[in-house]
């Protein structure tokens, strides 16, 4: 079973629909016990970084930490990717999971914010999330804050500056774009995550 963690931020109908479309049996849940029993964990998210505070209050953060430590594959989407970092300038008082030590910042001024629309991916060849996805493929973004490019970056996108469109380290993965809204490319990324098995 795949747990899609519901932290009461925005509309998760599209994510659940896309998971069904790629054949995943996913359960939307805010129950730490369900998260602990899942084979894979997805943290979707649209909205404000502060909403991730709910994860801590409900004991979901501890549950996710434990399962990531036990090797369970984890995928964060949008704010879910940013939450993998130490924190975000969007909500300085709200700690992320800190799987990656850097923090997320707002896009530098000089262009429209939020960054909305289809932008291209520069894919790191060894990435597992992007197996079968041609370099330069387009995916759909909508966000005002972005994660820096680090050694965990799996794909880079440019919007005035390069940022992490995806991150991967061992069983921890995240995508800044919305795979559920990124046509065939997005569904392929979801399928890659679902089919990935830790060695």
């Amino acid at each position: 079973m795949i747990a899609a963690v519901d932290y009461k931020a925005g509309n998760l109908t599209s994510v659940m629909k896309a998971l069904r479309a790629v054949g995943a049996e996913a359960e939307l849940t805010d129950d730490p016990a369900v998260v602990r029993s899942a084979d894979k964990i997805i943290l979707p998210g649209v909205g404000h970084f502060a909403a991730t505070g709910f994860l801590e209050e409900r004991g979901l953060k501890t549950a996710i930490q434990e399962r990531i430590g036990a090797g369970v594959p984890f995928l964060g989407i949008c704010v879910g990717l940013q939450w993998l970092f130490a924190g975000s300038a969007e909500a300085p008082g709200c700690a992320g999971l800190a799987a990656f030590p850097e923090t997320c910042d707002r896009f530098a001024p000089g262009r429209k914010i939020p960054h909305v629309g289809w932008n291209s991916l520069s894919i790191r060849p060894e990435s597992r999330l992007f197996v079968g996805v041609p370099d330069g493929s387009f995916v759909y973004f909508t966000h005002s804050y972005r994660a820096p490019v680090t050694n965990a970056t799996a794909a880079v996108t440019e919007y005035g500056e390069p940022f992490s469109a995806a991150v991967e380290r061992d069983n921890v993965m995240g995508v800044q774009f919305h795979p559920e809204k990124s046509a065939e490319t997005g569904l392929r990324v979801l399928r890659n995550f679902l089919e990935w098995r830790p060695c």
Partner: protein
Amino acid sequence: MLTKRIIACLDVTAGRVVKGVQFVDLVDAGDPAELAARHAAAGADEIVFLDITATHEARGTLLDTVRRAARQLFVPFTVGGGIRTADEAAAVFDAGADKVSINSAALARPQLIAEVASKFGAQAVIVAIDARRAHGNAAPENAEVFTAGGRTPSGSRAVEWAREAEDRGAGEILLTSMDADGTRAGFDCELTAAVSESVQIPVIASGGAGNSRHFAHVFKEGKADAALAASIFHFAIADVRALKEELRSEGIPVRLPC
């Protein structure tokens, strides 16, 4: 590179897509779910359903139509027309829309923008503005906002209302030029540029699309982030992929292959 979006808009009533000819006779243009899927497959970057009846009795039919269309759509999907409350917006999201477009109700009660945005995020709220210039050629900064499907002048200026909508939490502006709408003679690039330069959020241009050069103009001179077209796609007058190929040859970044 961030691409310019081509958005296919379908006018929906009683579970069907319709298209007005010379603003009167409504011609049946097909099944909304089927047309939405076809446009997405042809490369439309987003799909918009505009509920043109939007009466209370028709809401149930609309939600069914949205649900059916959403099932096979994996590109952003917006629904607009007659959404007056945060609860009505919630029902549309629940049926599978990613964004709602609100127009008259936001002008009548601007706090609606924040009510929807605080619950679903700014990215889920498009404020639609129907604007008309006095005599069609007055300064674009003075273009006036009309409500109720373009029937009622509001007294507000489009540029100022766009700014207020942004401050209140709108994620995008959908700007329709009533002067250009239905003419197929091109978008109102001056008006689009005036609004686009007055806000930080993306502006979707609408009204007047007739050929690919019109799109090129509104992206270049009109500084639009996206452009919407309805009728030109329906009867295969232009297919989205062909349009994008022409735009690319004019140096405009578009999602291709798609």
